[in-house]
């Protein structure tokens, strides 16, 4: 691997590596995602946060069914692969029997907001002390780009070939807003990872979420407005503009609920 190659003398100094692309918490293995897919960004930065907080041995993750079904191939923490939509129920099961652990789910919009609606809302309503990471790319990536509940109005997908028609099939579902309305939710935020600064903000929010979990006062919920270049039939670079121009107006980033409020 080239990354062990030293080009300048100072590079071998201990502090020189300011961004380590493979922290201990990230398994060194090529990702299976399409080029430019934000799942990769999210995985990597979640694991950076786990590394920075030094909680690797406390964490138990739950992977969904969706493109990120193999999250456990990359995240170097104990993990369980849940059935489609049931990650929050699985996380509940884990957390209830291992109350001293930090349990998180990582779920797509099909998983969390379609088939998993009940499990998600009820876990939050019970105030389960878990962290739900919701990666919303407004489409079913895994199965070939079908409409998700979060698909934007007019957006073309393989099951809305003429664009999502509100009258027929309804509105982009704002799960995060619903979650924020539940008293069991403790910290609820929506972020994105489409620019370096967005990534920085996401990391900060995620770190907060992990920390708030320790309060044991309810569910933490972090949405990531994300992309799917393949499903959107765009280049990764185009997908970044689409996020900026279409996704964020519908799903604006920011905290929806904080413990202080």
């Amino acid at each position, binding site marked *: 691997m080239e990354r062990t190659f030293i080009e300048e003398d100072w590079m071998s100094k201990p502090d020189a590596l300011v961004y380590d692309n493979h922290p201990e918490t990230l398994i060194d293995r090529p990702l*299976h*995602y*399409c*080029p430019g*897919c934000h799942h990769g960004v999210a995985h990597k930065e979640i694991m950076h946060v786990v590394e920075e907080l030094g909680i690797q041995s406390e964490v138990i993750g739950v992977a969904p069914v969706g*493109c990120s*079904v*193999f999250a456990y191939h990359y995240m170097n923490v104990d993990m369980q692969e849940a059935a489609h939509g049931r990650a929050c129920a699985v996380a509940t099961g884990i957390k209830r029997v291992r109350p001293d652990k930090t349990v998180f789910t990582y779920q797509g919009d099909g998983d969390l907001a379609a088939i998993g609606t009940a499990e998600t809302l009820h876990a939050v309503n019970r105030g389960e002390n878990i962290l739900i990471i919701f990666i919303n790319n407004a489409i079913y*990536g*895994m199965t070939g780009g079908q409409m998700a509940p979060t698909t934007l109005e007019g957006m073309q997908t393989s099951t809305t070939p003429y664009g999502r028609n509100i009258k027929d099939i309804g509105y982009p579902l704002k799960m995060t807003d619903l979650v924020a309305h539940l008293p069991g939710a403790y910290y609820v935020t929506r972020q994105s990872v489409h620019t370096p600064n967005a990534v920085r903000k996401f990391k900060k929010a995620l770190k907060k979420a992990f920390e708030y979990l320790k309060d044991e006062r309810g569910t933490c919920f972090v949405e990531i407005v994300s992309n799917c270049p*393949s499903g959107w039939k765009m280049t990764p670079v185009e997908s970044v503009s689409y996020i900026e121009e279409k996704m964020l107006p519908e799903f604006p980033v920011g905290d929806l609920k904080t413990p202080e409020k």
Partner: protein
Amino acid sequence: MSLNEEIVIAGFGGQGVLSMGQTLAYAAMLDGKEVSWMPSYGPEMRGGTANCNVIVSDERISSPIVSTFDTAIVLNQPSLEKFETAVKPGGLLLYEASTIVNKPTREDIDVVEIGAAKEAQKLEKKQVANMVMLGAYLCKKPIVNVGLVMDALRKALPERHHKLLPINEQALERGKALANGGG
């Protein structure tokens, strides 16, 4: 001897791998042959690769999925790695010149490099690289004639794309020429 040709076509998602296979299968069907076309499907697609099996036969086809092939047409490096060993001894391996870093090494099969992408660029329509490749294949193994391939394209393409038929035909012919050592 009765015809039974088992082909794999493999490459990146955008290279027209699947439609190349469909066109071939359709043409052979028009020729009265038994045909099957079977895509790879599933998460391995996430990496951006795609492939399909095509079988053209005089007899009823049992399984559309086979693990060794009479012909492999590969359009990128990972596909070469995956399928080079799957070509039956004496079989044919066609590969796209521009995407292959490490060349194939087998000597018991017929290995042909085709600069299909370059040829398509010359035609100022990079989408027809797959037809160049198909032409090259049909030169090596004329299991169906180019006229039927054009019939298949005519039926498969929506009316509004019929203006593209000539360039596809050109591509097929260029492919044939390339495989013939010409071009």
